[in-house]
């Protein structure tokens, strides 16, 4: 069940980690972008099955990105997951209100990250 997944993250090491896990454990096809603007462009070009995005990013943050995606008729069906380093409960609330379908807290758990991600792939297809 290989999927096309877009990962948007400005921290290179964390981007590498997620890409590696998704490729190694899920054999997914992964696209990347390192800020919100590039991420939105990539989403429009590739129309991926799922998007994983950092929240704090240069140019366009995750909140704005998810709002734009959910406004695009061609993209709004795509599940968008946030990856956040914040532990503040207010921020988690804000993430769900902004339109994200779910979120991961950093540090992500390498053992369960791919499995958790794939749950949303199934949901997205239903």
């Amino acid at each position, binding site marked *: 069940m290989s999927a096309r997944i877009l990962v948007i993250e400005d*921290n290179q*090491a*964390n981007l*590498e*980690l997620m890409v590696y896990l998704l490729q190694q454990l899920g054999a997914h096809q992964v696209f990347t972008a390192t800020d919100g603007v590039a991420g939105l462009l990539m989403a429009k070009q590739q129309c991926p099955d799922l998007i994983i995005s950092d929240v704090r990013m240069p140019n366009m943050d995750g909140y704005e990105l998810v709002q734009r995606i959910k406004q695009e008729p061609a993209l709004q069906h795509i599940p968008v997951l946030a990856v956040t380093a*914040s532990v503040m409960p207010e921020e988690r609330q804000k993430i769900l209100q902004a339109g994200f379908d779910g979120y991961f807290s950093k*540090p992500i*758990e*390498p*053992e369960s990250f791919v499995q958790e991600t794939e749950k949303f792939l199934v949901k997205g297809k239903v």
Partner: protein
Amino acid sequence: MSNDYYRLIAETTSDALVALSPDGEVLQWNQGAETTFGFSEAESLGRSIFELIVPAHLLAEERNTLLRACTEEVSAYESYRVRKDGALLYLNISMRAVHRDDGQLAFILTNKKDVTHLKTRRDTKFLEARYRDLLDSTPDAIVMVNIFGRIVLANGQAEQAFGWSRDELLGKAVESLLPERYRSLHVGHRSDFFTSPRTRSMGAGLELYGVRKNGDEFPVEISLSPLQTEEGILVMSAIRDITDRKRVELELHSKNKELERANNAKDSFLAVMSHELRTPLNAIIGFTGTLLMKLPGPLTAEQEKQLDTVQRSARHLLALINDLLDLAKISAGKISVELQTLDCRDTVLEVLNTLQPAADRKVLQLSSELPEQPLLVLADRRALHQIILNLMNNAIKFTEAGQVRITTASGCDETGAVWVEIRVQDSGIGISSEDQANLFSAFTRLNLTNNADKEGTGLGLHLSQQLAELLGGEIHCQSQPGVGSIFTLRLKGVSL
């Protein structure tokens, strides 16, 4: 004496000489009257004297006096008159009826001498004698003003506040103690006050200023009260120099701003810390994880052991960061607990489920004894979970063999308030009584010989105690080295 002779006297005297008909019509109005009252002869002739210069409250009295003057000479009484510009005057007045040769009443001649300044001096003497000692003993500057707006008494504090000597102050118009720009307005306020005298603070809500002899202005607070005396009504104003208070207020204000800025800086620091410190840990823990999962390839036993150490240390660092952030948030008042009625049995069972694997790894028996009925407490869900998790975690960590057991109790205190206790009991190494004293302080790590697998942040109990206090509860500990410990979380209960 000839009419000319009379005329000469009338023209040279500075007194106001006014001839009146018995009903008060002005028949003659000399130069002195023009000067004293401000009305010209043309303005006055034919007018009623009562309309012209008699204050409203004295009308009836003055009509009577005039009537009396028709039959007898009225000599030297003192009374108030109003000048054309509204200023009040104090006059020495005498009246005499003048008859024609046939014995008929011709007119009533009134002679009025302006003694306002004498009256002020008299008020001063009278007040000095009566009130000076009293007023010198008050902390405020006190200035008494008569109806003419002249200062008739000033205490020592007033001398100090305004820089004028007492002798200089006495007789001075009270307006000279105000900055120039307020003076003309004040004259009006002053006459209003005499019209309806009552104790009040002056210019409530306004910033008032006094001015010193050297021209310096200073902020003041003034309260006014009328003082009825046999010499007429006086106004006592208590004046407080609030320069110091204003300065303190200003300092407080800027201090508050500073604190607010510092607090905001702290908040954003917390948010940034949370983000910046956790971001690199994500890659460290993540890639250590992938290596340990052997995704890139097989590991030697030694490599695996070392990577385990890396991962454990990274997780320790993460726990430390999380605890520190929580503590910082508590001390910044940033943790808002949402007190609600919770069944604490649910929370206990959740924690037991979470920690069962850890207990299994150490072959410890994890058990609970919970009531069959809901056990309601007033608490914040997240905080309660964190405290119980922490206590249970510690119990498992410091117990090598035997069991960790969680029980509850509830009851009423002497005021009828319901309490609930959650007790975590272990058969671990126990805590010496010396160590128990510092148990809840930050960064307390017990001196243990074999603590390789007991890494903690030293913040857990401190944080738990702080959280318990936020919930209006507390944690206490009973322990015996070698036998085990009981940690008890006591919370406010809710009766069913």
